[in-house]
């Protein structure tokens, strides 16, 4: 027996196909796999292991032995000045106050370690600035920039903010002096030309004789550890560099590309104008309104910093009272 025509469909089809099971639906493909009980078991076990593996991969990070900190959440700049423990205490107080006032105004932090705090052995005390910077980074792990400012310098214009003055990426890119001999006048090693402002880790200036170490910025990070530790190497400290750490710095900058590549050279009067001393002929001399008034070498031999700074300091302190 056969039919000439297929049976008719109902003339009132249901609007949607009826659901076969209640509760959450299993997609038909999966249901097909799960039809067989043993197969379903295998799928279940495999799925479990896959889940386990995925989760294990996600949380697979090892735990760090030291606490992690976020750089940039603390004070944006830490001002570091090393203090000679034999210096005149009144003068030291005034120097400290000069920096503290400035820091308070802009929300920076300060750090005044003694040069005797660090294991310098027989090397000159001016080397203390290197471990002092590293120490400041240890104490302020959340700050980004560390400004070493020698005790022979004064902040002469406290209204200037460091970020807009130097540290901002675009500002720094504009300021960088490129293709300039690292050691004037004619070193064959010249500053790199195509550096990005946010990849710079050390900012220095140049006076008439070479790189200045009495005012410099170092950015916190792994590179800073490398830079400071390499700079502080006992071989350089015991080597008879004429100007100690300043010549050691010039040496590592010229011989090691990984240091030169992170260095920005900026005009001297931005943060290291000289009142006395071998200022850069182009832009090193102090003029009114400069951020820094520096008296390099005033702590040496027969000179007296307190005396030399007195007029500038008095003027500054008078201004503050107004």
């Amino acid at each position, binding site marked *: 027996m056969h039919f000439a025509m297929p049976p008719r469909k109902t003339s009132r089809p249901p609007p949607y196909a009826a659901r076969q099971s209640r509760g959450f639906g299993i997609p038909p493909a999966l249901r097909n796999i799960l039809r067989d009980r043993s197969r379903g078991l295998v799928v279940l076990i495999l799925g479990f292991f896959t889940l386990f593996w995925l989760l294990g991969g996600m949380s697979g*990070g*090892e*735990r*760090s*032995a*030291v*606490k992690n900190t976020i750089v940039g959440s603390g004070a944006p700049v830490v001002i570091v000045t090393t203090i000679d423990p034999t210096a005149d205490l009144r003068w030291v107080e005034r120097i400290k106050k000069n920096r503290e006032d400035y820091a308070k105004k802009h929300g920076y932090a300060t750090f005044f370690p003694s040069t005797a*705090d*660090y*294991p310098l052995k027989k090397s000159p005390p001016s080397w203390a600035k290197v*471990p*002092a910077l*590293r*120490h400041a*980074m*240890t104490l302020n*792990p959340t700050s980004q920039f560390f400004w070493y400012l020698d005790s022979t310098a004064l902040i002469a214009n406290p209204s200037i903010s460091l970020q807009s003055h130097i540290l901002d990426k675009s500002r720094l890119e504009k300021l960088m002096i490129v293709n300039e001999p690292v050691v004037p006048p004619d070193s064959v090693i010249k500053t790199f030309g195509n550096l990005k402002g946010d990849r710079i880790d050390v900012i220095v200036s140049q006076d008439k004789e070479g790189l200045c170490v009495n005012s410099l910025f170092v950015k916190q990070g*792994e*590179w800073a*550890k*490398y830079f400071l*530790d*390499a700079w*502080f*190497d*006992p*071989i*350089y400290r015991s*080597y008879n560099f004429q100007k100690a750490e300043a010549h050691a710095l010039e*040496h*590592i900058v010229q*011989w*090691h*590309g*990984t*240091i030169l590549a992170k260095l920005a050279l900026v005009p001297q009067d931005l943060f290291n104008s000289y009142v006395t001393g071998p200022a850069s002929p182009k832009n090193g001399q102090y003029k009114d309104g400069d951020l820094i008034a520096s008296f390099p070498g005033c702590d040496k031999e027969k000179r007296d910093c307190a005396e030399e700074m007195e007029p500038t300091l008095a003027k500054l302190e008078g201004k503050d009272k107004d």
Partner: protein
Amino acid sequence: MSRSPSPRPGGWSSPGLNTPYDTGGRTSPYPNGGSQNVTWASAQARSAEVKGYSGFQPRNQGFFSKHFRRISTSLPFSAEKEKTDRGRYQSNRVVQILNRVWRTILRRQRSFGLLLVIILSIVIFYVTPLHRAYRRSSFLGGGNKFVVILAANQGGGVMEWKGPREWAIERDSVKNKKKYTRKWGYELEIVDMSTKKRYAHEWRESWEKVDTIRNAMRKYPHAEWFWWLDTNTFIMEPTYSLQSHIFNHLKDITYRDINHYNPLNISHPPADEYLDPETRSAVGDGKSNSINLIIPQDCGGFNLGSFFVRRSVWTDRLLDIWWDPVGYEQKHMEWEHKEQDALEYMYTNQPWIRSHVAFINQRKVNSFPPGACGDGKDANIHYQEKDRDFLVNMAGCEWGRDCWAEMYNYRQLSNRLNRNPWEKFKDGISDTIKRRKESKKKDEKNKDKKGKQ
């Protein structure tokens, strides 16, 4: 009857190739009276011509589509059936069994297919050179992440002439590494370390390790780990991959705290208060991904005969600072092991280095033969056959020891230890035969002796 020469399902036969069709001297495929040449196909074609259905061809008419099933089911045995009765009777049982096996295989086509796939993939992945490709690939084997840098020609060049022994040592060493790197899909970079006075600063002579590693990093931009090997080294266990031997469990196999084994008596961790907690920690940050340099230590301190360095910014800095003119000027008389001494010095004096250096047990990557660091009794340093150490470094063999003899012996030992089962079986048989012969000889001798007595 039209004799149009249109091609039939049987097709034209080319003249001269198929003689039966050419009997009448015609080119037509259908000779009139040649009934002895009528095949099924030609007859069918003929009737099709009559019916005028020449274009139509029913399914399953072709030979293969008709017979494929039958052929495939009975292929190996159809010949057997044609045999004479006698033959059939004798092989009947065997045939039956074989037939049954074949049938069951066919019945379980699915599992049979699976087996076939497995066998085929074993062939494809292990027998053909394809396994090198997948061991190399970054997502399967990861072999291209490793570069072996082999220093060849050490000390050769203008300073010394190489003799045949030195050539032989070098050839063996290179062959050994080539085989190993090919097996696991690593890169091999053989570098010429001959002393050439090619530096502008003459005093930089023979400090090429740094430059060589840098060049290798530039040449293999996708590689991560670089394994430095001296010439006088031999990989004893080529079946160990670097991944399974070291890098899959880097954290457990290495030690960050040098106090674990400290022949140089370096005080660790650095105690200076101005340093950050990570630098002052004995194990750095303790994570395996912060390890950038893996060095073994022998009885005298660091050993750079076999060490690993990882591509990283930290490594860039280390390679940059490793050689410094001031350090060189002051210390080059004192540092007779050059880079090695310089690295020890930097590790001691520059704290930033410590948090990224890990040490590895000497015998994991750099076992010494007796003669280096004592006479072979130190279980931390000397090669142990029963533990199947990975690599032997015949360090210092050029100073009063026989490099070639050592290399030869270790090569033989390595070959013997890594025989495959078949070779072992063969050797076992030949050994027993030898032993029997020897014992027979002994017996004969004994008899002779007895006879004489």
